[in-house]
C-alpha cells in the first residue's frame, strides 16, 4: 500500500530524513517511532504530499507522491500534530467543508458526516464552534476529518499527544477499530502506545532508519540470547539463593544467572541461555530434583522501551569519535 525508497529530505543545513526505505502492506497498523526531532513528522509530510522529497521516491496505493500528488491526496487521510481546525466554524460545517474538499457531495457527504460523528463520538458537539471544544474533542474532530472520505491510508501524527489517560485509551481504541478498513501509520514517541496498538514498528533516529519489524520479532531480536525468569520456593519455608544460583548455573547451555528478587520463602532469578538452546526443561528438572518448588517459569520479554533505548542510543565508534572531537 505504501512503499518508500531511499526517501531523503534536506533543509538548508540539516538532513531531516536520510535515505529511509520501508513498505507497509494493506490493512496494517504501523507505529512510527522515534525520539523528538527524529524526522517522523517530516517523513509523514512527504507521504501526505505536503513536502516534496529532496530525493528518493514514495508511492501510496501505487501513485507517486511527487508526480501524481492529487491522486495520492485523494487516498490519504491526514491528522497533523495539531488538528487543522478553524476555530470560527461549527463541527458539522467543518466536516462538511473538509468532505467537499476531499471530493464528496450531496447525500453521500451527509451520510459520511453522520458516520464519522458517530464513529469518533462527536455527535453531541456538531453545533458547537471548534474553538470552544476541549482538547480531547478537538483531537477526535481531527480524526473525523481524516477519515471523512474513507481513505485507503490514514496518517496520524502523534494522535494521543496532550490527552488525558482516559482520552488516550479512547483514542487508541478508536484507532485500533479503524485498522480493518484502513492502512494506518501513526507516529509517536510513547512506547506503550506502539506495543498496544501496532503490529509493525518502524524506528527512526536522527533521520535514519534504525529498525523495522513486527513488535514481537523486535522484542525477540533485541536479545541476542534468550532469557527465562525462574521463581523458586523452598519446600519448608526459606530458600538459600546462593545454592539455587549455583545449581541453575550448572545446567548446560546456561550462560548467566542473576538473582532478581528475594523474599524469605522464595526467590526470583533471571537465567540467560545461549541462543538456540532450549534450557527450560533442564532448569525445571534441576530445581525440582534439588528438592525446591518451582513456582514460575516463563520467558522474559523485553519491553519495547528497553529495545528502543538500546537501538537509538547505540553510538557507532565513528559517531563517538566525532562527538568527542566536537567537545575538545
Amino acid at each position, binding site marked *: 500500500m505504501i512503499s518508500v525508497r531511499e526517501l531523503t529530505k534536506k533543509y538548508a543545513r540539516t538532513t531531516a530524513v536520510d535515505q529511509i526505505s520501508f513498505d507497509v502492506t494493506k490493512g496494517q497498523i504501523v507505529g512510527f517511532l522515534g525520539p523528538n526531532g527524529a524526522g517522523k513528522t517530516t517523513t509523514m509530510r512527504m507521504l501526505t504530499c505536503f513536502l516534496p522529497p529532496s530525493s528518493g521516491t514514495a508511492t501510496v496505493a501505487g501513485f507517486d507522491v511527487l508526480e501524481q500528488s492529487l491522486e495520492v491526496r485523494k487516498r490519504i487521510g491526514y491528522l497533523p500534530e495539531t488538528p487543522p481546525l478553524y476555530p470560527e466554524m461549527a463541527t458539522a460545517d467543518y466536516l462538511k467543508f473538509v468532505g467537499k474538499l*476531499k471530493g464528496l457531495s450531496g447525500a453521500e457527504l451527509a451520510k459520511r458526516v453522520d458516520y464519522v460523528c458517530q464513529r469518533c463520538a462527536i455527535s453531541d458537539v456538531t453545533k458547537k464552534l471548534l474553538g470552544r471544544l476541549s482538547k480531547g474533542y478537538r483531537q477526535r474532530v481531527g480524526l473525523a476529518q481524516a477519515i471523512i472520505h474513507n481513505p485507503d491510508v490514514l496518517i496520524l501524527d502523534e494522535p494521543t499527544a496532550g490527552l488525558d489517560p482516559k482520552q488516550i485509551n479512547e483514542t487508541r481504541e478508536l484507532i485500533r477499530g479503524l485498522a480493518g478498513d484502513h492502512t494506518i501509520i501513526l507516529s509517536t514517541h510513547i512506547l506503550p502506545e506502539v506495543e498496544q496498538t501496532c503490529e509493525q514498528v518502524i524506528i527512526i533516529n536522527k533521520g535514519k532508519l534504525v529498525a523495522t519489524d513486527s513488535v514481537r520479532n523486535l522484542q525477540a531480536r533485541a536479545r541476542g540470547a534468550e532469557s527465562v525468569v525462574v521463581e523458586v520456593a523452598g519446600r519448608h519455608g526459606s530458600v538459600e539463593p546462593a545454592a539455587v544460583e549455583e545449581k541453575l548455573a550448572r545446567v548446560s547451555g546456561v550462560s548467566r544467572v542473576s538473582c532478581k528478587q528475594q523474599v524469605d520463602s522464595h526467590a526470583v532469578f533471571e537465567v540467560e541461555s545461549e541462543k538456540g538452546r532450549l534450557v527450560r526443561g533442564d532448569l525445571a528438572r534441576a530445581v525440582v530434583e534439588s528438592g525446591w518448588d518451582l513456582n514460575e517459569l516463563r520467558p522474559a520479554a523485553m519491553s519495547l522501551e528497553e529495545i528502543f533505548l538500546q537501538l537509538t542510543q547505540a553510538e557507532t565508534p565513528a559517531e563517538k569519535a566525532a562527538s568527542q572531537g566536537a567537545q575538545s
Partner: protein
Amino acid sequence: MRNVWTICRKELGSYFVSPVAYILLMMFGLIFGFFFWNELGYFVMYGLQSQMRGSMMPMNVNEQVIRPLLQNVSVVGLFFIPLITMRLFAEEKRTGTIELLATSPVRDQEVIIGKWLAAMALYSCLLLFTAVNFAFLFKYGNPDWKPLAIGYLGLLLQAGALLAIGTFISTLTKNQIIAGAVTFGVCLLLWVLGWVSGYESATWAQVLSYISVITHFESFGRGVLDSKDAVYYATVIFLGLFFTARSMESLRWRS
C-alpha cells in the same frame, strides 16, 4: 471550479462569522456616508451661489457629486484592503490549517482563487453598502447611471488588483499584523507613486506614475472605460495571484 466555490464560501463564512466583516461594513458605511453628505453640501452651496449671482452655470450631479465621491472611495479602499486580505493565508499558516488545504486533493490555484474571490465578494459588499446613499441621489436628483456603473467597475478592478497583492503578501508570513502592515505600506506607495508626475516628466517618472494604481482610476471615475487602464488592473490581478501561487509552492519546499 467546484473546489474554488467551496473555498470561497468557507472564507466568506469566516468573514461573516467573526466581527471582521461587520466592523468593516460599519466603518466603510460611516466614512462613505460622511463623504456623501460633504459632497452634497458643496453641491447645494454651489447651486445657491450661482442662483444668487444669477448666472445659469450648468450643474451636473455626475461631475460634481459622483465623480469626487468615487475618487474618494478609491483612496479609502486602500485602507480597507489590508484588513480584508491580511488573514487569508497568514492565519492558516499560524494555526496549521494550511496543512489540511495542502494535503487535500485541491490545486493550489483553486485555493488561491477561492480566497481572492471571497475577498472580492466582501469588498463588493462594502460597495453595495453605498447603494443606500445613491438611492437617495437617484430619488431626488437625476444623475446618469452609466458613468456610475463604469466608476463602480473601476473600483472593483482596482480592489481586485490590490487584493491580489494583499493575498500574495499574506502568504509570506504567519503574522496577520505583519501581513496587514506590509500590505498597507504597499497600497499607500502604489497610491503616492503617481505624484511624481506632478513635477517630473522624465521617463522614470512616467513609469512610476504608470505603476500607481490611482492614476488608472481617473478615467473610470469620469465614467470613461479606457481599455489601457482595464488591462493594467487585469495584469496586476494576474501577477498578484501568480506570485501567490509561486509563494505557496516555495512554502512547500522551504517549510
